[in-house]
């Protein structure tokens, strides 16, 4: 009997010791195949942990719904930095220790001085130029005046000067910051929109979309299609499209965002993605350590054209070609968006609505910004 019991205990200890710990990872955005391949490599490289890869098409929406409904969250998820505030407020993620990376990455995932995610990569907003329509060389430190000149030239040739989404708060943020002295104007953490700088940014939009008509507004799919089909000479979009355009054999170059005429840079949004940990354990740590290794980051970012968070990977990729060069340059002047709920929800909804109403001529500039500010302020209460 004793032998039997000892045997059972040994079996149980062995099972406990050698049982595979499962880790569920939610992944989104581009690079599904590349990341899945890394996950498979990780699973094959050891037997203690097994990572279940789940692709989530719309991560932000999924997380919002999961929090509202209280549905099960994974162990780890790749998120954009704008959901950090929401997740931290819901107390579903915990701060992590510091990570060696570019300051922009750390700042992206910081809230109240604490880091809430393992930075993985970043996309940068850039300007795509169709070389078949405009083949002159433009210096990287170009100005808004030059930008308008190029757009006008393209428009005069019968194409769309610049294709961009006029109602997207996400793209507006760069102009919002630029016209407000280079940073998002906040007062006690609350975005201020009813001010001179924001009015100038709105007027600039009105000028290029409605007065000069050198810009045409589209939704995301239409934006991309307008450029791919050769109807638009310039496109304002994220660097994530580079692989798609390359595979479609488009003749294009990318440029950093221009500067205002007074030299203030229009900062592209630093669209950082990082891993938040919902259940902290050894398995999760082992997996995060594996995928953020220099060689693995290079493997992922090289084919997907992402700016890696790992310093070694940045050094390896930064000067490998012009695309990474522009991304690196853009990162140096990039805009880190606040991660607070008030910015990502109240401000975002308010500014989208205000832009739509103002640019379609339904409301005056002053009224649109006044209403937007009232909405933001009421959400704070």
């Amino acid at each position, binding site marked *: 009997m004793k032998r039997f019991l000892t045997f059972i205990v040994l079996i149980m200890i062995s099972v406990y010791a050698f049982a595979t710990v499962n880790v569920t990872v939610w992944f989104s955005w581009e690079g599904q195949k590349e990341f899945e391949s890394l996950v498979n490599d990780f699973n094959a490289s050891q037997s203690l942990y097994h990572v279940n890869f789940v692709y989530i098409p719309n991560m932000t929406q999924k997380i919002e719904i999961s929090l509202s409904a209280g549905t099960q969250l994974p162990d780890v998820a790749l998120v954009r930095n704008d959901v950090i505030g929401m997740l931290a407020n819901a107390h579903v993620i915990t701060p992590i220790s510091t990570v060696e990376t570019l300051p922009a990455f750390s700042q992206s995932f910081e809230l109240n001085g604490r880091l809430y995610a393992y930075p993985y990569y970043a996309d940068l907003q850039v300007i795509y130029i169709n070389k078949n329509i405009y083949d002159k060389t433009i210096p990287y430190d170009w100005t808004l005046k030059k930008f308008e000149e190029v757009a006008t030239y393209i428009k005069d040739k019968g194409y769309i000067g610049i294709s961009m989404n006029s109602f997207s708060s996400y793209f507006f943020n760069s102009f919002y910051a630029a016209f407000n002295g280079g940073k998002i104007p906040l007062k006690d953490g609350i975005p201020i929109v009813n001010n001179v700088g924001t009015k100038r940014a709105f007027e600039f939009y009105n000028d290029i979309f409605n007065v000069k008509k050198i810009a045409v507004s589209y939704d995301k*799919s239409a934006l991309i299609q307008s450029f791919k089909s050769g109807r638009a000479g310039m496109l304002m979009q994220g660097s994530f499209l580079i692989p798609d355009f390359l595979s479609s054999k488009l003749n294009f170059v990318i440029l950093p965002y221009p500067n205002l005429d007074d030299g203030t840079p229009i900062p592209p949004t630093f669209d950082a993605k990082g891993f938040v940990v919902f259940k902290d354990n050894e398995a999760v740590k082992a997996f995060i350590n594996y995928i953020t290794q220099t060689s693995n980051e290079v493997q992922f970012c090289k084919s997907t054209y992402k700016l890696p968070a790992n310093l070694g990977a940045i050094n390896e990729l930064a000067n490998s070609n012009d695309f990474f060069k522009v991304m690196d340059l853009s990162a140096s002047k990039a805009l880190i968006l606040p991660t607070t709920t008030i910015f990502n929800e109240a401000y975002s909804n308010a500014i989208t609505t205000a832009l739509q109403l103002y640019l379609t001529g339904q409301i005056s500039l002053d009224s649109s910004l006044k209403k937007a500010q009232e909405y933001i302020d009421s959400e704070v209460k």
Partner: protein
Amino acid sequence: MTFFWLLISISLLIFSIFVARAKPFYTLALAILLFLVNFFPFVWGIGISFFDFFPPEMKFVGIKNLQTAFSDSGLFLSAKITALWAMTSMVIELSISYLLAISIYSIKRFSTLLYTIILIPWAIPSYISVISWTSLIEGYGGDSFLSEIFHTSFNLSTNIPAAFLWSAFVAAWLGIPMATLVILSSFQTISQNLRDLVRMEGANPLEVTLNVYIPQTLPVIFPYIFITFLESFKEFSTIFLMTAGGPALVSGFGIKSIVGATTTLGMLMYDKFSLTQNYGVLGAYSAAIGLIMLLLAFIGWNYRFSRQKRNLLVVLILSHIMFDLWSMGAGLFGILPTVLYLLALIMYSKRKRSFKRFVMFGALLDFGYLFFGIYERGFTGISISSIISIILSMTLIFEGRIYVSKFDFPKLLWRTLKIILIALWIAVVFLPVWNIFVMGFSRENVLPISSLIPQGFTLSNFISLFKDYNFGQAILNSIIISVIAIFIAILTIFPATYAAIHDKHALRLGMIVLISSLFTGMHTLIPLAITFRFLGLLNNYFGVAIILSVHAFVISYFLLYPFLLELPKNIEEAAIMDGANGFTRMLKIIFPLSLPALWTIIVFVFIESWSSFVIPLIFLNNQNLYPVSMTMYNLVGQYGLTYSKWNIFGAGAIVNVIIMVILFLIARKSIINGIISRNGVDD
């Protein structure tokens, strides 16, 4: 948690005592599920609205949240938009359905084929047809196949009339199969003598329509018209998939909510759900929207007594007062029509036919107010009380008038018009279907804008669909969910309906099933998600299947009840004499005899479960559990916000449509019979 369990236990006990007292052995299972899915969320929503509730933290705040919701101008505007949108969609649906029904009623050749074609929009899940329509309407930023035909841009993000009218049209397109069959079945109520008389008089089709079809059938289908309005009022999927709330409105840029041109109440509730983590606020909005729905359900319920017009007049007056007082009606102006309706009620009580005049004048005032309100103030000028009054007034005052056509068109012209109409509708039915075929076989991931011919024919999308997007697993998940839903529906509905046949008190449950179908919507689904969280039913097949089966209760019950009622009584009497108890009789005698009706129910539940989009959207969170609907939606994403994989979506849609068409062809007869008897018009 204590609060949750206390509330659910007490309310469930009260509900069960009320509805499942008679023959509880047979009815309790149905009652519990019905309560859990349809009623408790409303109770729970009200309960938690008194707290600021960030689970597990609860802080009592009194009526603060309720005050926020009940006084939100965004809620008022959203309700007004919902009412106008629902009426628009209903008018489109019924107008086209009437025209189609009249056109194909007299056609004998190819009638089966025509009926099948008419039913196609019903058989295609909305997550396919709506997305396909959207791509045809909006294309890329308004540049689309249809915009080329109409020579105007249809940007659904900025063009208010386009977003409003196209979404109403697509919702109507989805409902036309059902409405056409209901109208066709109502034609059966026209006496043969009358038809013969009209034929002998040599009336032309216009005269037949205006003197026979419409006057003879409209009163019969008035309840269906209101149900259509109510269903449109609750519509969510079409708007969510097409416009996601629609273009911004100045009047919708409020302090508490932002409401767009198509932000119906379902969308508003979903937006709150996405943005608010405070369950107390969600509960308060759920309570406010629930109250509006309760009022409408109450009106719908009173259509049972449409022959006794007193009930309808009373609900008309009550709803007018309530919406006028609650900033969603005509305000002070509402006193005028209300007084007229009150006078009509007095006249009706004295059995004076002149009551119709008062109703008519009241309706004219309401129509005038609505028309000038919208003309002057846009969406804020909408009056829900006026819209409801206009619909109810039609029921109250409608009388057929003798119409003699001044024009004598040749028969050939009528026949040509009929053929053109049917051909046009066939084109409208097949357009979105053809569109997905074009996308599915296109090599390039682009929308067909100028021509409906695949751009570079390929089959690789289908390979990619199964290899890269795990579509096989999605099909398996859909089958699992549908099968569980079928089992739950049969196991609960069959005993309860059997009990209703044998005990009149058990019939009460049937009535509750009907009421709950009128009342539920997004405002009950959101608190239900919170409820399921506490019950551990989120994110699994079983939870989703429970909801789908409960949603299928109403159709199942009203298919099965008349069938069981007509079974010969002597078979069961013989079994009683042989000493068989009730359960044995139900299982061994009635169940086998009911198989034809149960087969129809199985088909219905399967199709409804397979086509379900909203429930998996809210209740599933794991890609491995995603049914076909969610996998398909994820390929396209929210329109305009994501970089859609149109060609893969097309391939998935083709596979889906093939599955549905095979099923549909197998069960076509059951479906047509089911739809007709569901609406009870032919009974």
